[in-house]
């Protein structure tokens, strides 16, 4: 009964989505307030029904109702409660429902936080979001009903894919989806602006916090996904350039470009049509990512069950949403007009440069991801594009981005003196190169990659310090406290996020150059050495879990006489699917991780053990956290609230008049 209720609620949600898509749009074009006002309750009602439907599905999982096909395929009576709940989205249907739910959540957020925006504009935004929601809900109902019954019910389920039974997977998909889908708000703002022809600094200011928050979610989601891959896949890699990872990375790159482009549009009114194009593209790539993951067009390690009918449906959805948006863009964008002029040496130029570079980087990822498909389609053979391609494209593209990223903030808007700006940062720049070279020598690993990476990191750190000092000394005379208070949250956000990029680069560079790895055959009491650490094998015993059997090894790690850690990697066999799994054990430290995973047992009773030494790897995620926090600061800037309040009074006055 409950699954049927959930199904029915989903149908009601679709009806409300259609109402939300059509009625406010008509209201906006005819200027009828009553019709426009339908948008908010429709969106909120839709969220209620989707939430209800989602709760019903979760109920089926928690109750182990294996007459629901999805629960039978992705849960098991012995699965821990936490993974019963997360199992809801560890599959095609459930994850699409989660997609629809986060879209609806964003829409509700728009209805709540848009009280100060003009009614017609909000009506159009809600209308656009309604259309997107209509597309996804009908996709769910037509091709991927999550409440499909399995009659007669099976006695027990197949269990969730063991790879997904992990704490990291509890929060990774919701965050990632909130990020992905969050760009739909920026997209809806852009389309609404194209429809109304009103695309100005105010529009950019409204879009900015939404874009930034979506970007924060996406950053967090990607970072957690990468952390999960690091400790769960059992060989210590943290990024694989896998199609599914690329699918989330492309919108991230464009979203980053969009945030910065919006800043220029807000401050200077420039780059309008470019900003709109970025908003459309960032969301398009989110949709494309969904297509890649769900259609099975491109194979990847994230193998969900695939179905060509579903692929066709998403492709049609993609063509309609993106095609119509780009057509609208081609029609309306030429009329937008340029903004404030700027000279070649100005903050605008540096931001534009980075925007172009980020877009090119995104395009090169897209090309690398799709190229195997192109060749296959043209009958030119089967190929795969691996990490070497992406690395050899990315390093040259990102190097100027990082240099410009720290140089731009030293430039003034509109026009600046190049010689003066260069004089300001030249010592820091030279020092960075020297530090890069020196550090590479110090760690005894002089390769061009190491030197480049360390120099870039040093440049980010030094330029950040210089920037902060410059900002504090700007207002000479005032008390220190007053000076610090005069710095806005948005500025701190920018500063912290950029510094985070530097920390990230340190992690990537050092783990890339200095990591060490050895595979050894070990028996009780045997030792292995790696990077100054001694690993002693203390045997293997059974450590069965609720839904798996496991063999757990005990390995003592010492350095000289000092005990460092006792690691307990496991080899598990998940019973329901008969699927073996490697569970790594890691000693995490601020400057290095020691990572051990258990291979198979061989005939003479000894075990294959993989040992990894990963210097500075946690800095990768520390950098991501700093970037994310920077985004939080930027979005929380008081300015938005103050301006919102002022606009509310203006709008109210207009309404009265």
């Amino acid at each position, binding site marked *: 009964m409950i699954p049927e209720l959930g199904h029915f609620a989903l149908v009601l949600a679709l009806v409300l989505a259609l109402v939300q898509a059509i009625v406010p749009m008509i209201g906006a074009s005819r200027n009828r307030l009553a019709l426009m006002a339908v948008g908010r309750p429709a969106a909120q009602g839709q969220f209620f029904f989707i939430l209800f439907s989602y709760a019903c599905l979760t109920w089926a999982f928690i109750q182990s109702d294996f007459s629901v096909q999805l629960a*039978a*395929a992705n849960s098991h009576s012995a699965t821990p409660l936490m993974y019963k709940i997360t199992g809801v989205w560890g599959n095609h249907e459930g994850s699409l429902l989660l997609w629809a739910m986060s879209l609806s959540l964003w829409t509700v957020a728009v209805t709540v936080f848009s009280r100060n925006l003009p009614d017609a504009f909000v009506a159009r935004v809600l209308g656009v979001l309604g259309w997107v929601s209509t597309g996804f809900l009908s996709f769910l109902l037509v091709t991927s009903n999550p409440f499909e019954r*399995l*009659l*007669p019910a*099976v006695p027990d389920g*197949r269990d969730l894919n063991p790879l997904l039974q992990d704490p990291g997977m509890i929060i990774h998909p919701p965050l990632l989806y909130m990020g992905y889908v969050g760009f739909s708000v920026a997209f809806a703002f852009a389309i609404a602006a194209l429809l109304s022809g009103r695309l100005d600094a105010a529009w950019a200011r409204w879009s900015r916090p939404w874009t930034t928050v979506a970007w924060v979610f996406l950053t967090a989601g990607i970072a957690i996904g990468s952390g999960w891959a690091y400790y769960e896949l059992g060989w210590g890699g943290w990024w694989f350039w896998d199609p599914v990872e690329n699918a989330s990375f492309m919108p991230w790159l464009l979203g980053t470009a969009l945030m910065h482009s919006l800043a220029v549009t807000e401050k200077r009114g420039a780059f309008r*049509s470019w900003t709109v*194009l970025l908003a*459309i*593209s960032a969301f*398009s790539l989110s949709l494309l990512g969904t*297509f890649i993951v769900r*259609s*099975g*067009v*491109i*194979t990847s390690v994230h193998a969900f069950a*695939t179905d*060509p009918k579903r*692929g*066709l449906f998403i*492709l049609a959805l*993609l*063509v309609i949403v*993106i*095609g119509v948006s*780009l*057509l609208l*863009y*081609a*029609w309306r*964008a*030429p009329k937008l007009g340029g903004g404030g002029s700027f000279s070649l040496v100005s903050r605008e130029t540096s931001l534009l440069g980075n925007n172009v570079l980020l877009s090119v980087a995104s395009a090169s990822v897209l090309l690398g991801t*799709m190229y195997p*498909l*192109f060749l*296959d*389609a043209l009958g030119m053979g089967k190929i795969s594009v691996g990490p070497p391609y992406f690395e050899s494209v990315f390093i040259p593209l990102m190097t100027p981005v990082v240099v410009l990223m720290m140089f731009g903030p030293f430039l003034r808007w509109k026009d600046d003196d190049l010689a003066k700006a260069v004089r300001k940062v030249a010592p820091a720049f030279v020092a960075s190169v020297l530090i890069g070279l020196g550090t590479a020598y110090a760690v005894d690993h002089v390769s061009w990659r190491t030197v480049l990476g360390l120099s870039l990191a040093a440049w980010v750190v030094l330029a950040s310090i210089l920037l902060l000092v410059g900002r504090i000394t700007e207002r000479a005379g005032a008390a220190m406290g007053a000076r610090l208070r005069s710095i806005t949250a948005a500025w701190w956000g920018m500063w912290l996020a950029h510094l985070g990029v530097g920390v990230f680069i340190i992690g990537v560079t050092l783990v890339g150059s200095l990591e060490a790895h050895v595979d050894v055959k070990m028996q009780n009491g045997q030792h292995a050495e790696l990077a100054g650490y001694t690993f002693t094998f203390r045997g293997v015993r059974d450590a069965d879990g609720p839904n798996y059997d496991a063999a757990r090894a005990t390995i003592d790690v010492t350095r000289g006489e000092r005990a460092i850690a006792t690691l307990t990697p496991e080899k598990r*066999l998940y019973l*329901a*699917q*008969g*699927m*073996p799994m490697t569970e790594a054990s890691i000693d995490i430290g601020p400057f290095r991780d020691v990572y051990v995973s258990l291979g198979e047992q061989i005939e003479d009773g000894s075990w294959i053990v993989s040992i990894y030494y990963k210097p500075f790897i946690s800095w990768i995620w520390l950098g991501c956290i700093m970037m994310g926090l920077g985004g939080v600061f930027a979005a929380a800037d008081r300015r938005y609230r103050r301006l919102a309040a002022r606009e509310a009074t203006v709008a109210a006055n207009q309404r009265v008049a």
Partner: protein
Amino acid sequence: MKAKFLVPLLLFFALAGFLAFGLTLNPREVPSPLIDKPAPAFSLARLDDPARPFALEEMKGQVWLLNVWASWCVACRQEHPVLVRMAQQKLVPVVGLNYKEVRGDGAINARGMALEAETALAIERAQRWLDDHGDPYVLSVLDIDGRVGIDFGVYGVPETFLIDGEGRIRYKHIGPITPESLQQVIMPKIEEVRRAG
């Protein structure tokens, strides 16, 4: 409308074209080269009576399904209720090809196991599985080493072959049979073959 603003749209359409083509390349939809060819001949021990071999010719004159299954195969468990219902409704005779019952199971180390022991274990496991889940098959045969499976081009379990009265393979279904695929694809195919025969 200025031409340069159309560039993104055109680029997108080119991409969408490739994606549409990519969908037609779905690896699971690759037709079997054996379609409309005589099924590879085989003679294998029956599960219910291992001393008695079963050969393809015995089904001559009937339209029937050869369903490849194993107790370790997870997706088989999913399609099994569908097969059981088919048997209850007497839609079409289904012969089970039990594929690598022992050595296909990742949880068992079958290396070095004598063939007799492996066969005995396979019979025990397969029979228990059918007792637990219901036996929809007119009979099952044991493909211990998977050689017949290779002849049939099996590359994943479950797979199902539709064989006509003259012993030709007329259709191959990859993956579990679902109520939809049964109704929309397999039954119509069976009707078509029956009419033609």
